[in-house]
């Protein structure tokens, strides 16, 4: 016990554990928990039946399917291509690398409405890309997918980059020296080491995509039962001055996202432990 304490003191960089813990809790409380609890409180002005009716209306159910489904697919696609992109950016020298590296951040910086309008202009039937496609993209669920891929990409790339940088060539070299094929090195050495960060990137991209409104709203077409996202259902409720109904849907979204993120975190922790045992 005493030794533990000594260890803790030695390892702590910031002075005053109690002070910093208090600060952390206060900050989290003010910035994150206070607005969220306001949403929960507003929901409690509904009775149970009103709550269930609000969050299980057919259009709202259809919107969950679209929002969570497309967000998952978009995050998965970003996970694959984000990994490739991050790998190339770290491991290869080529002219314009710095530029490409900076471009990755653009979806972070661009106002989402601008992104939405630009994507719609490109993918509309008379747009620069849309006119060559045999199928419709803008104003369909496919358009939602395009927008969500766009805004989610930097999350995967930026979480993977530092990990790949730290990976070092020696692991791959040892693996090769021990007689591993290239694909064996990749699947048994490189990917397991990247997995935790990879999943974090995926989770971030997913969480962002679920809540995204600005960029999606222009390209989705917003047809009831087909291409309405859940955040739009919340706005629809607000337009009717139905604050309680709006927050009810928001609470369902929050809980669903929280459970999914928690599961992803647990999965990550489990994998880390397993890796630790193997090592």
């Amino acid at each position: 016990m005493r030794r533990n304490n000594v260890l803790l003191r030695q390892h702590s960089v910031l002075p005053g554990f109690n002070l910093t813990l208090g600060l952390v809790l206060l900050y989290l409380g003010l910035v994150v928990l206070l607005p969220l609890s306001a949403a929960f409180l507003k929901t409690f002005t509904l009775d149970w039946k009103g709550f269930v009716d609000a969050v299980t209306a057919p259009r709202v159910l259809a919107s969950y399917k679209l929002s969570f489904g497309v967000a998952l697919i978009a995050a998965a696609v970003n996970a694959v291509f984000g990994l490739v992109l991050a790998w190339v950016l770290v491991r290869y020298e080529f002219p314009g690398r710095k530029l490409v590296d900076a471009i990755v951040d653009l979806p972070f910086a661009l106002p989402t409405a601008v992104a939405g309008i630009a994507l719609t202009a490109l993918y509309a039937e008379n747009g620069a890309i849309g006119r060559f496609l045999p199928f419709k993209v803008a104003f369909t669920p496919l358009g939602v997918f395009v927008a969500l891929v766009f805004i989610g990409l930097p999350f995967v790339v930026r979480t993977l980059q530092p990990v790949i940088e730290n990976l070092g060539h020696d692991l791959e070299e040892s693996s090769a020296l021990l007689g591993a094929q290239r694909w064996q090195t990749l699947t048994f050495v490189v990917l397991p080491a990247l997995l935790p960060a990879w999943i974090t990137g995926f989770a971030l991209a997913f969480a962002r995509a679920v809540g995204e409104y600005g960029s999606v709203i222009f390209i989705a077409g917003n047809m009831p039962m087909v291409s309405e996202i859940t955040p739009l259902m919340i706005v629809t409720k607000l337009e009717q001055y139905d604050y309680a109904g709006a927050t009810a849907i928001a609470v369902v979204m929050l809980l669903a996202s929280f459970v999914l993120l928690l599961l992803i975190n647990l999965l990550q922790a489990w994998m880390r432990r397993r890796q630790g045992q193997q090592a």
Partner: protein
Amino acid sequence: MRKSLLAAAGLLLTFSVMAKDVNLLNVSYDPTRELYVDVNKAFAAQWKAKTGDTVNIRQSHGGSGKQARSVIDGLEADVVTLALAYDIDEISAKANLLPANWQKRLPHNSSPYTSTIVFLVRKGNPKGVKDWDDLIKPGISVITPNPKTSGGARWNYLAAWGYALKKTGSEAKAKDFIAALFKNVPVLDSGARGATVTFTERGVGDVLLAWENEAYLALQELGPDKFQIVTPPLSILAEPPVAVVDKNVDRKGTRAVAQAYLEFLYTPQAQEIAAKNHYRPRDPAILAKHANEFAAVKLFTLEELFGSWANAQNTHFKDGGVFDQIYAPK
């Protein structure tokens, strides 16, 4: 010399005591941006001449419903000038900032200028759209924003409903008409400007349902060589209302100037400005002057068909209302 200096100083002093700077905040909806730039300039000049005070009018624009919610949540609007009475009703009901009978306090349902719903079609009117019945024909694609999220779109919807009801005399048939109409709508943008962009820039649709003033603005901005306006023989009288927000002006001490500002909207000078911005003026003399710009159209009022905005809202746009029933899975 000294005396005159003193006198000048004295005059300056009294002047600065008397002449005040007054700030007004007008919370409005999207397409009135250009209208109120002109109105504010004219009113400020008139107020300065009358009282010596300088009045600075700040404008806030956005979707009508969103603007109303901002006022409910505490945005200190002295006056609200919104797209539909229902939004001001809610400011009264939810935040109690003005009395429920606010619409009776100014002439003409508190709407100093009006508009109507017209069709914007592509140049030459290739699909030959003339009347509401043409909108439900197969193969016609109609662009209108979502009435659940856009105040302007609610006027579009009610105009179509009113036409069908007047023609058939039956609510059931009117509902069939609306269902057939929305079957021809491929995109439901969340706001009126979004729908205009979808139609004009993205090239989607044959007809855009729009406020007359918005249609003129689109024509002006994007070129009369690309689009033209078709005014149906029958449409709705769209009345965007204005109101002083009592609790806010009383706290800020701006009631007199806020009231004068809204009354100014009814003067020939402001009516002329409204007409120039493609809103139909209430003043018959000014309207007659601009008769060639505003096509003759038979207009019905919202009250005549629906009783009140609250009624229209509850029957048609509430969750589970007629609009939702159109899209309910069968």
